[in-house]
């Protein structure tokens, strides 16, 4: 057990930096800078994905055979760190981090061949049809029904909190195919086109005034049965496989480290009657507590990635990083608004639209603080609420 970096990886950071310097456009950088959500502005995030894909770097976490990079865990960590350091917009996760890994693990060869390349190159933009108005934390109670009809299923029902459904051309969805027995046993995992007749999409405006989420309605929507992943009524197994990736595959620590560094710079600029806020012991204490938590998370995430790349199922550990990552993100955004005081009260979402070129009131570094704080409250709700994650740990790890 050691932390030594192999010789060949030492030059890797330089290689990544050089690539970033050469390939990042101003437009993409600006979108990264203005991003106040896990879900970056679509146009620039997709442009960035295409650039990365041309280099073969869009999905480092995928197996090499399917278009991954074959990097070691530490190389992947370096890469993730350099991306956030350069303030690139985060890649939109539904295809690369959810549907892709899921198809790699559970899809047929035909499905893998059809979909994986288009996930990588961005031709397919995926959204996730899981939650329903009556099925949130209790996801297995979902009701959207898929009735068999010839070679098709006919879908009726509704999905909600479908991130970026209004930008998507594909959806992976959990639907009910059997109403008898345990709720988990009658669920099927389907892939469908968003332009099918009978689909209506209604964007939902969030607290940050951005329509990031949607409700999607299905009215007799015809989906071919060949678009099923896994066996009929066995979609819950597929979903659980995917959730492990959704929760465990994400790296929160690099982004949190960068945010903390920037908050320190902001605190240098804020003057108290006895000098910069950065030197205030109470403020320092708060920052230090977060730094300690983030360092711990960084290593917890490394342990999980290391298990994943050794082919082990990190299982409930991924619930732990989901809780830690999201709640630390919330605390970091909170420290930022505490550092900025009334400057964070100024509300100007119009300046955060990439390319809008609107004048900013107050220090530029303050403009994202409040929208990001508000938006980050969703992180402990989505992807299986943190209450659900704690339940998983209690049950699966502690045997309670």
């Amino acid at each position: 057990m050691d932390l030594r970096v192999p010789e060949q990886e030492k030059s890797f950071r330089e290689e990544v930096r050089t690539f970033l310097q050469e390939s990042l456009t101003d437009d993409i950088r600006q979108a990264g800078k203005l991003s106040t959500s896990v879900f970056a502005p679509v146009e620039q995030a997709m442009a960035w994905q295409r650039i990365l894909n041309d280099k073969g770097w869009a999905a480092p976490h995928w197996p090499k055979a399917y278009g991954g990079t074959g990097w070691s865990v530490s190389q992947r960590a370096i890469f993730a760190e350099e991306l956030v350091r350069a303030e690139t917009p985060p890649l939109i996760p539904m295809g690369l981090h959810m549907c892709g890994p899921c198809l790699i693990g559970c899809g047929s060869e035909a499905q893998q061949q059809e979909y994986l390349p288009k996930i990588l190159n961005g031709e397919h933009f995926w959204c996730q049809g899981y939650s329903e108005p009556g099925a949130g934390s209790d996801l297995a109670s979902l009701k959207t029904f898929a009735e068999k009809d010839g070679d098709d299923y006919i879908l009726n029902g509704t999905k909600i909190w479908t991130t970026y459904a209004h930008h998507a051309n594909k959806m992976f969805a959990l639907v009910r195919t059997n109403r008898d027995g345990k709720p988990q046993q009658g669920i099927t995992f389907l892939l469908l086109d968003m332009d099918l007749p009978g689909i209506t999409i209604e964007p939902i405006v969030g607290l940050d005034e951005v329509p990031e989420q949607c409700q999607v309605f299905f009215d007799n929507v015809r989906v071919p049965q060949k678009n099923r992943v896994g066996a009929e009524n066995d979609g819950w197994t597929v979903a659980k496989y995917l959730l492990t990736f959704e929760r465990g595959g994400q790296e929160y620590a690099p982004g949190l480290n960068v945010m903390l560094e920037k908050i320190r710079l902001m605190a240098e600029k804020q003057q108290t009657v006895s000098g910069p806020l950065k030197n205030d012991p109470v403020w320092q204490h708060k920052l230090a507590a977060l730094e300690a938590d983030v360092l711990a998370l960084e290593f917890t995430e490394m342990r999980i990635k290391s298990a994943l790349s050794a082919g082990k199922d990190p299982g409930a550990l991924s619930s732990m990083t989901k809780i830690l990552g999201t709640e630390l993100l919330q605390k970091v955004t909170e420290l930022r608004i505490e550092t900025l005081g009334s400057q964070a009260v100024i509300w100007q979402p119009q300046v955060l639209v990439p390319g809008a070129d609107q004048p900013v009131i107050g220090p530029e570094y303050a403009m994202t603080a409040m929208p990001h704080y508000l938006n980050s409250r969703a992180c402990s709700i989505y992807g299986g609420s943190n209450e659900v994650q704690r339940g998983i740990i209690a049950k699966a790890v502690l045997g309670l």
Partner: protein
Amino acid sequence: MNFQLSEEQQMLADSAKRFVRDHFVKSSDVEKHRQNKKLMPLDQATWQQFAELGWLAVPFDEQHGGLGMGVLETMVLLEALGEGLIMAPYIATVVLGGGFLRRASAEQQAQTLPALVEGKRQLAFAAEEYERVFSLENTAMTARVNGSEIVLDGTKACVMNGDQADQLIVLARTAGQPGDRGGLSLFLVDANADGVERLAHRTVDGRQGAEIRFNNVTVPETACIGALGDGYALAHTVLMEGLLALSAESVGSLSVLLNETVEYSKTRKQFGLPIGKFQALQFRMADMFIAMEQTRSLLLAATLKTAEGHDDAAFAVHAMKAQLGRAGRKIAQEAIQIHGGMGMTDELGVGHYVKRLSAADGLFGNADVHLAALART
């Protein structure tokens, strides 16, 4: 000791509650907030209603058309209005602006207060500055004395109601350094005076404010409220009243957030049960309740101690504002979490109350600032 409202106070509370019920029923209120996606002119009709109901007259002397009431009545009124997310600039105009003017010279009072009480004058207190953690003594903006005139130079940040105000009360330094209580002065400045530049912006809670730049703005020395260079005590007194009002309004918002969350938990079903039946959530809602009641207790402590002129009134005000920040954060976050995705939408009232509490914490020193002030008091 008696925590009962007087008959007069009860009437004031009832009229405010009725107003909120009639004019700001939850849905239409939220609708108003949702529509407020751009800068809006002052809602003159609502403001006139405030005048007709006598609310703009609350703290002023009868000779200026006032009702001669105090901080207790302001608390009662604002707590009731806080349940309705009102956007009207009551605190900026009546509590802060009015707070300075009713302690100003007889001439300044006569020129301003009758119009204010009638709803024809808007005010704002320009105190905060960019990149300066708020406290009165941390003021850096300068005003220089030039014969019988004063020249103001500098920028004020996040001035609540600064975009709509007819007159500004500007806190500036005529002597000393940031950190000194001496050398602070207060000036009554026409918001449209030469050299005043206002950049209006929305604030997170659905209200409006402005960055206000003073480019060599010249005012006569008679524009000074109180003695030149000796404005700290006055500013402190008025600020304390402003903090009481802001907290009273916020307690109204806290109680709505708690009630809506508890009600939602009774109707939202998951795993075959209303989510309020899960002990994990029950404990958290119990903690929300405790946090709200503690805030209410500190509001009463601070308001009563201020009304009666106790020595430790300022200590209690700092404790209250700190508690408001901390309890507000906790209750807001739990309210969203327990509402789930719905709590994140612009559609439901929850998020709008959350935003109001975020603004209340950020303005005039957040919880950290007031805990530090409390430690020094």
